[in-house]
């Protein structure tokens, strides 16, 4: 009997929870705020769904209801991706500055 592909996805999901568990516990508490902003940014990978939905329309019908939702979701996710990564970068940069100064 063949295994349903859902089971494979579920396996990936469960294993990733474990990976996440161990990786996040090893994050130093002083970087918990950047951790939140970067997780925020990466969870916006949901943009792939938005892109698929937005590009679904044929050339005759670019703005179907479904693709409009896709378009809006792209904007929302893009704000998050750029905002999330850049603000993380900005914070992490501050952790560097002092180190250089100390040297």
């Amino acid at each position: 009997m063949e295994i349903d592909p859902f089971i494979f996805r579920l396996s990936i999901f469960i294993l990733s929870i474990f990976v996440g568990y161990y990786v996040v516990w090893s994050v130093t508490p002083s970087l918990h705020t950047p951790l939140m902003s970067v997780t925020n940014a990466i969870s916006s990978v949901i943009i792939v769904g938005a892109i698929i939905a937005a590009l679904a329309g044929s050339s005759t019908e670019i703005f179907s209801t479904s693709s409009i939702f896709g378009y809006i979701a792209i904007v929302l996710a893009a704000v998050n991706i750029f905002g999330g990564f850049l603000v993380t970068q900005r914070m992490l940069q501050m952790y560097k500055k002092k180190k250089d100064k100390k040297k």
Partner: protein
Amino acid sequence: MISSNLSAIFYLISGILFILALRGLSSPDTSRQGNYFGIAGMFIAVVVTFLSIGNLSTSLIYVLVLLLLGGTIGAFIAFKIPMTAMPELVAGFHSLVGLAAVFVAVAAFLNPEVFNLGFFGEIKLASLIEMSIGAAVGAITFSGSIIAFLKLRGIMSGAPITFLGQHYINLFLGLGIFILIFYLCKTQSANIFWLVIAISFLIGVLLIIPIGGADMPVVISMLNSYSGWAAAGIGFTLENTALIITGALVGSSGAILSYIMCKAMNRSFFSVILGGFGADSSSANSNAQKDKKPVKSGNAEDAAFLMKNASSVIIVPGYGMAVAQAQHALREMVDKLKKNDIKISYAIHPVAGRMPGHMNVLLAEANVPYDEVFELEDINNDFANADVAFVIGANDVTNPIAKTDPKSPIFGMPVLDVEKCKSVLFVKRSLSPGYAGVDNELFYRDNTLMLFADAKKMTEDIVKNLD
């Protein structure tokens, strides 16, 4: 157009890059590299999505324009936002992830063919369940984050809003969602799908309004977690590995942070969720009789004198310091003290800021070297050997009552052993209790000198007196 097998491999790679991004945060030295891994992972995921669709009609231009539009807004916010406002920013960003999840789920529901999920009205059962869960969690994340944002921003009062039967209503609505999803699977009716989303928006609001301002660090972490589960739900719908991995990572990350925050406040997760903390009037009343106890108060000159003659000083910053924008003045004071060969360290309680790790970022912004900053468990034994503890803008996290009085609402909460220092300088505007509504016993100790003033002004005055 690339094959779906190849794109699946690329999605896996971007998932791995996201894991490395989080892994990098284990130390400040590797963190920046980690962030680049994250950016690379995102880039791969987006490009592969474009390539896998192949059929690029005119809509591609719209997509790219919108991508750029969103990106510009995001970049603008990222550069403008002051570090004190990070909690609001993160809450706001969570709401966007939540709403994006809802919209993607709606798009998939209306046009399932493009996602290979069947046809409108005949969506595959598993996909339908996955997308409704994704949409529901996304909707809860969205409206909950909006409330958290409004509370943090001060647009809405931080006081908990409670009413009779609140928890029953939440329970009822939660069960309602499951029943509706069950019927949705039977009927494939769009109206039920809308109803599920609408109820989820309502639950998000109801879930967050009873939670008080003091518990906001838990709320933000919790919403972080939700946004991850929402992404994972959508990932299952779209059969996308990158999304599933990311969702699981973010979900567990948020859950761990919530756990750490709850532990730091000695509150059970459920008592936070059920809310109402911070409105406890009984504890506030019991303080009334204590107010007459004698308090020693001093001025900047006394403080400067004490610190100049110390050999080690531990600084205990709290959110009040950030509100007063005193971190730069504080750094100036520390520089002066260092010139006199005084050993300085900073003691940070896990809930010192408004979100996990917030105080560390604020100090980093003020150019405080991170190797002078210590977490509670690493520094607590040092207080007994230190000459002066300089408490600025913190309150509840220094209250020794948490160790002695089992009746106190904060009993059992891990606190900084500030009172063990030879002398304690406590910068505060008045003797009013902190968030928890509990009087701080530390004010009345013999070795405590209260400095009644605005944190920034007092620090600046001390700097002048150090010359």
